[in-house]
């Protein structure tokens, strides 16, 4: 946008601090560390291994979606429909099992498939019809939530078999089972973004889509893949969520888009596209979860924490964009 057309200022200041110290992710990690210590000082239940692992458990559902969202935002896109896909997949998981009588493993596969299909629909309209991602996913935010509500008619499904609760509630080598899932997903996402042509293509699209197209990169196919992946991960998140809370309702996942986008943007991924890392998103996720938990432990009510998240989202974008402008100026 306009930042691109600005003429760089002449080189005036000498670099006294190493560049990586000024990176958004590094600064965020330092803030995170300080927050940890302060919150730990305020409440002695905060800095316990149990509490931290439990926070990891709670962050998994948002975390799983934040990874593909990082890809999407790096390309300059956005996906607001993820929360609704979580709701739709949760409902379909419960309904296909309880009402249609699918075996539960099949019901899980079915709901993951629907998640992927929902993301695919977003992707195909965004790439083929060229509807802006923001508007397309606002439309499907309504559509997918509407389907979940229409199918469920406000009834919930519960009483899943015991084994299904493993992923949501059990520990595996002392660490919550879903946290393993998230860790694997993080490592895979980081490798894909950093070390593969696919990952580099995302940055190329975000920096200059037209140039990426002219360089012969498969822009549309890559976008289609990431939106489909986003839907699939939202489906996976739905399964983990249902397993954790043991019930299925059509209002599941409402507001997830805010948490997910906040984590990604907080983690230094530019909403303008072209910039971002998985590492940043992970720190962003940790930051938000610790804020929520830390504030709750110090006696702040749940609703006030979403005020904090909103404020942090706006402020961090402000800081990031002013830093970027300065970096371009130097």
């Amino acid at each position, binding site marked *: 946008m306009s930042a691109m057309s600005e003429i760089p200022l002449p080189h005036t200041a000498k670099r006294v601090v190493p560049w990586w110290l000024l990176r958004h992710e590094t600064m965020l990690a330092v803030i995170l560390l300080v927050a940890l210590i302060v919150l730990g000082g305020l409440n002695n239940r905060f800095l316990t291994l149990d509490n931290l692992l439990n926070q990891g458990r709670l962050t998994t559902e948002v975390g799983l979606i934040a990874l593909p969202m990082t890809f999407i935002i790096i390309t300059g896109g956005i996906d607001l429909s993820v929360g609704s896909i979580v709701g739709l997949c949760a409902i379909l998981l419960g309904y296909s099992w309880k009402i249609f009588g699918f075996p539960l493993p099949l019901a899980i596969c079915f709901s993951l498939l629907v998640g992927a299909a929902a993301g695919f629909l977003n992707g195909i309209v965004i790439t083929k019809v060229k509807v802006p991602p923001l508007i397309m996913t606002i439309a499907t935010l309504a559509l997918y939530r509407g389907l979940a*509500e229409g199918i469920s008619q406000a009834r919930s499904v519960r009483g899943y078999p015991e084994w299904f609760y493993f992923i949501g509630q059990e520990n595996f080598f002392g660490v919550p089972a879903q946290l393993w899932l998230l860790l694997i997903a993080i490592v895979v996402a980081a490798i894909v973004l950093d070390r593969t042509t696919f990952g580099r293509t995302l940055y190329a699209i975000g920096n200059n889509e037209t140039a990426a197209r002219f360089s012969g990169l498969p822009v549309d196919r890559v976008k289609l893949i990431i939106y489909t992946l986003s839907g699939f991960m939202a489906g996976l998140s739905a399964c983990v969520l249902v397993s954790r809370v043991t019930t299925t309702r059509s209002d599941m996942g409402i507001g997830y888009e805010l948490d997910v986008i906040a984590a990604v943007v907080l983690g230094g991924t530019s909403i303008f596209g072209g910039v971002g890392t998985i590492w940043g998103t992970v720190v962003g996720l940790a930051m938000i979860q610790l804020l929520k938990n830390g504030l709750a432990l110090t006696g702040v009510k749940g609703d006030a924490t*979403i005020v904090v998240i909103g404020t942090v989202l706006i402020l961090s974008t402000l800081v990031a964009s002013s830093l970027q402008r300065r970096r371009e100026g130097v």
Partner: protein
Amino acid sequence: MTAVTITGAEADPRRRLKVLASQEALLAIAVIGLAIAVGLYNPRFLAARNLSDVLLGNAYIAVAAVGMSMVIVSGNIDISVGALIGVLATISGTLAVNGAPIVVAWLAALVAGVLVMALQGAIIAYLRIPAIVVTLGMLSILKGGLISVTGGKWITDLPDSFHLADIELFGVLPFPVFLMILATILAALWMRYSASGRAIYAVGGNAEAARLCGISQPRTIVMVFALHGFFAGAAALLYATQLRVIQSTVPPNLELTIITASVVGGVSILGGVGTVVGSTLAAVLIAEIASALVFIDVSPYWIRAVQGVLILVTVIADILRRRRMAGA
């Protein structure tokens, strides 16, 4: 989102007008056609009581959609408006209950609406943070703030004189419907004929060209958001005063319904195109559909899915139409 290349077809105002006229005519036909179709299936749908419920109870959505349409025409979006309407209704109601003069209670909603939205507009325009991030953040601040402050309590015992929505002009015309029509006409005339109104189209259509023509993009955007805040305040008053209580929870997905009205009404999501007449017709159509579902024995739980399909179809149609025009 803001920067859109202008194509030959869009540059031709007569052609653009023709397309928009067809969108509005189409909506008017849809509103009447649907009423007749549902009336044939279930005559009770056409009862005066039901039709007035549809218009009265949803006029505030049309009023809010007037402001939203301006925002979208300017190439931005606002997803905080639903939460804002909840906050403004609560502010106004709290003042009224605590003995403030009624006019002050009414004005407070309008002023607070303008202030919050102008602030958002300023952040978007001067600090160059995308509207989606700012309004998403504000959505969460307002929503969380409202519940934290009120503790989820409803406001009751509102004084009778507070109920703006009960007023009937000349003994027949309900105030909400009057306000809906007045806001639409004034906004339509202003956007069509005044320089500042035209500036919104210029900024949304091609920000660079607008700048070169001497239009200040930041100032236009702050103005648009401030106006949007004013309409949100008016909408909040209608919303707050139509029931005897004000629920301190924000009406869920209100912003979505308002955006749907704008988009279905023909406001182009790419910015630069659209009228408020279309968005008001669309708001009426959406309310009518919600009511119609009940009368044709479809569960109201499907309403949001219908809304989603409506946006999807109009948006895709809009883009395809633009492409065909650009190709022709």
